[in-house]
């Protein structure tokens, strides 16, 4: 190439660049209807989609079509954007007025002035926004632990809880029915409803009848499955963190709501509940002991009994290949879900009974479910997957009247808030507050659940006729679980929690309670158990001692 052609090339490139730059992305905002006021809404759509937001937006736009929020403009347009942001890298640097997202450390956003005080719409009646249909306030619909935690920093509300997700076990109800994987009063397995045990809740005639109520029963079930050529468990191999989904679920089921809340409140006096901890193990039998938890001995929660039994189950699963599908780090969550769906359809495959997942999996697996129906037709239609209640006892079997209401844990820290960038923009702020409030009327909450198959993180009831609109067993089961279980929201206003919230989160990879060994954050239990460390050793080695606790939280102790 000679000099001239080089210069020509550069010139040509510059020309092409500038032409292309002109016709490129940011040029055309032809979609913007400037006769209306625009409200930009961020909606993280992983596992939930944004259909719900579009539906709400449509109703809102209709309601306010003839209202002017800005001079010279009439009506509203809600622009919805799907992006995975959690606000950590700044809320005010983004153009979104309202955020609906997950994994949020809201205290941090409040402390950095990223979000707006919305106490007025949280405590104010929804009457006007719902045209009189809903006279409660958003605050009335909040669980008490939310009321305390959301206002912990300075007494005002800055955000409201968004969706609610549990993690634990999905089970193939059809397979359980087919093989008769239900415990009978006589101790064997049965498929006959009348013969089933009362299940973990101790109540006859509920959907958990015959399901393992103790770890002992769960182990027996696992062995029965292996004997039948069924693989008990599968989970996403690409990340060890997925097994934590079950780990947290097990602990909360064993502890129950009040006891589990001690993990974040460190205050036994509030609900008059003691923690059950394991101090020692005699032979193979762990010795349970009741202790009163205060800020001073919060570290004892690392010895909670549920944690011990959960480790024991994990050790059992991980140390025996026949209890799980082949572990494979190249298989994504979508492929894992699809293999779970197909295992009971495809000839020659070992059926898989249970999958460790979050309640959102069904939305992620939409395409896989469609494919299975396309291929296996009626065999794959109307399949029943359920949300498995987990054991509440270590040994034996729960007897009638002695069980515990199903207890589940919200794990995604999902909230909605308004961007502080708009705190002085009266028109947008007013509009944003209205739309946010609009999303929490009973009508919107029910619509959300019917659209997504997931609950919102507030109290409301879904009427039978609306529930009937959901066309699959799993999502109905989740909404049923929401309405008929104790849901634990692991938040509190204890300064220890407020200042170090990330340490006390129970979702994937939570640092303090889930993955430490030898008093140090070293080998996680997954790797340790695979390498032959016993649950007992791991449990005691990973418990926190008083010295460490004091050095971290000394300033909050009396």
């Amino acid at each position, binding site marked *: 190439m000679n000099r001239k052609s080089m210069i020509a090339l550069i010139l040509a490139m510059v020309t092409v660049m500038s032409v292309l730059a002109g016709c490129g992305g*940011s040029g055309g905002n032809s979609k*913007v209807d400037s006769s209306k006021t625009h409200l930009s809404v961020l909606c993280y759509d992983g596992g939930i989609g944004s259909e719900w937001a579009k539906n709400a937006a449509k109703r809102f736009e209709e309601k306010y079509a003839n209202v002017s929020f800005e001079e010279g403009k009439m009506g509203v347009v809600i622009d919805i954007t799907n992006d995975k942001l959690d606000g950590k890298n700044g809320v005010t640097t983004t153009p979104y007025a309202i955020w609906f997202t997950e994994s949020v450390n809201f205290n941090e956003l409040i402390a950095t002035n990223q979000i707006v005080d919305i106490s007025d719409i949280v405590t104010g009646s929804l009457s006007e926004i719902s045209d009189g249909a809903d006279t409660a306030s958003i605050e009335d619909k909040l669980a008490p632990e939310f009321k305390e935690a959301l206002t912990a920093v300075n007494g005002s509300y800055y955000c409201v809880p968004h969706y609610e997700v549990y993690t634990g076990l999905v089970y193939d109800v059809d397979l359980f029915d087919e093989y008769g994987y239900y415990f009978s009063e006589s101790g064997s397995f049965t498929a006959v409803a009348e013969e089933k045990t009362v299940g973990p809740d101790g109540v006859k005639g509920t959907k958990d009848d015959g399901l393992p109520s103790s770890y002992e029963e769960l182990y027996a079930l696992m062995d029965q499955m292996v004997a039948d050529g069924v693989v008990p468990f599968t989970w996403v191999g690409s990340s060890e963190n997925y097994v934590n989904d079950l780990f947290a679920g097990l602990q909360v089921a064993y502890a129950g709501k009040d006891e589990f809340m001690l993990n974040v409140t460190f205050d036994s006096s509030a609900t008059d509940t003691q923690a059950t901890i394991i101090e020692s193990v005699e032979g193979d039998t762990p010795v349970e002991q009741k202790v009163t938890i205060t800020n001073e001995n919060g570290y004892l929660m690392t010895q909670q009994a549920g944690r011990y039994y959960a480790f024991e189950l994990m050790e059992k699963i991980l140390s025996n290949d026949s209890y799980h599908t082949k572990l494979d780090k190249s298989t994504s969550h979508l492929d894992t879900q699809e293999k779970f769906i197909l295992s009971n359809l495809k000839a020659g495959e070992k059926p898989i009974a249970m999958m460790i997942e979050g309640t959102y999996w069904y939305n992620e697996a939409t395409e896989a479910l469609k494919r299975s129906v396309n291929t296996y037709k009626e065999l794959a239609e109307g399949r029943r997957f359920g949300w498995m209640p987990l054991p509440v006892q270590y040994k034996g079997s729960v007897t009638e009247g002695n069980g515990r209401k199903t207890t589940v844990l919200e794990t995604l820290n999902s909230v909605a808030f308004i961007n502080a960038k708009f705190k002085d923009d009266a028109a947008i702020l007013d509009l944003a507050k209205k739309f946010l409030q609009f999303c929490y009327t009973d009508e919107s909450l029910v619509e959300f659940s019917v659209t997504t198959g997931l609950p919102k993180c507030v109290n409301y009831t879904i009427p039978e006729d609306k529930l009937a609109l959901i066309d699959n067993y799993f999502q109905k089961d989740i909404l049923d679980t929401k309405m008929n279980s104790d849901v634990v929201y692991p938040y509190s206003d204890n300064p220890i929690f407020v200042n170090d919230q990330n340490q006390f989160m129970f979702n994937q990879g939570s640092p303090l309670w889930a993955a430490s060994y030898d008093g140090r954050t070293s080998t996680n239990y997954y790797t340790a158990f695979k390498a032959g460390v016993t649950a007992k050793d791991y449990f005691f080695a990973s418990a926190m001692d008083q010295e460490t606790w004091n050095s971290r939280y000394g300033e909050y102790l009396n």
Partner: protein
Amino acid sequence: MKKRNLSVLNVSLFLILTVYCISLIWPLIWAIFTSVKEQYDFLYNPLGLPSTYIFENFGTVLEKFEVNAIVDGIQERHGLFQMLVDTLLYAGGAAFVATLVPCITAYATAKFPQKKMSGLIYAIVIATMIIPIVGSYPAEITMLQNLGIYDTLLGVWIQKANFLGVYFLVFHAAFRGLAKEYSEAAEIDGANEFTIMSKIMLPLVRNTFFTVFLIKFVEFWNDYQVPLLYLPSRPTLSFGLYFVSNYTGNTISTVPLRMAGCIIILLPILALFIAFKEKLMGNITMGGVKG
């Protein structure tokens, strides 16, 4: 073939190289075969040959490959063509400035080594190679926003227009190696410094310039992080690939479709590489690391 070619060293090197090449080509072939598999075929037979060849996978990808672009807070869907345009703009522009700036900086410092700033710049290049940078992209976003160039092509071009890195050393060595007579002859002709640089010296390093440009181009073509963070309104192809493989609820959710996507994105760059392989692998020599 000459006889000395058959030493133990050569033969063993040949064998190692062959194994290495197989290990690189094999996965590519695997990707090609996977891209024409049916999803169930892939799930239960991830390694073998396809039981049926589904070439429609490519059509599906071409049709459905879409990403979210966020333009002024409003979401748009961008298809493959728009992504291709934005990729060319981003990679082309950024590669050009990321080659030009080190080149002229190296020229000025190599031409005037007696100036104190020349020594300082050389030292800065070495020093910044040593100092690891703790993730500071929130600060970078704030900086771009304060300058009013966040989420603009101009912004990312300016961001990439730094003289740091190993290619400064490459150009520095090249200019220092060039015979002084070229420019001295021109000076006697009465040409000014800008003319000497643009008309005489830059053309002399055009091969190196072009090679560095292509290397940078490939680098930016495959980069999804910068577009992800700094250019949300113009998602590029690599970002698109990242997007479809990391976001759930996508129509391109199976591994065969993703592989087809990979191959579609790989093809242009492979073509470019084959067309310019002599240039790309041309002569780059580097200076030492002494200040």
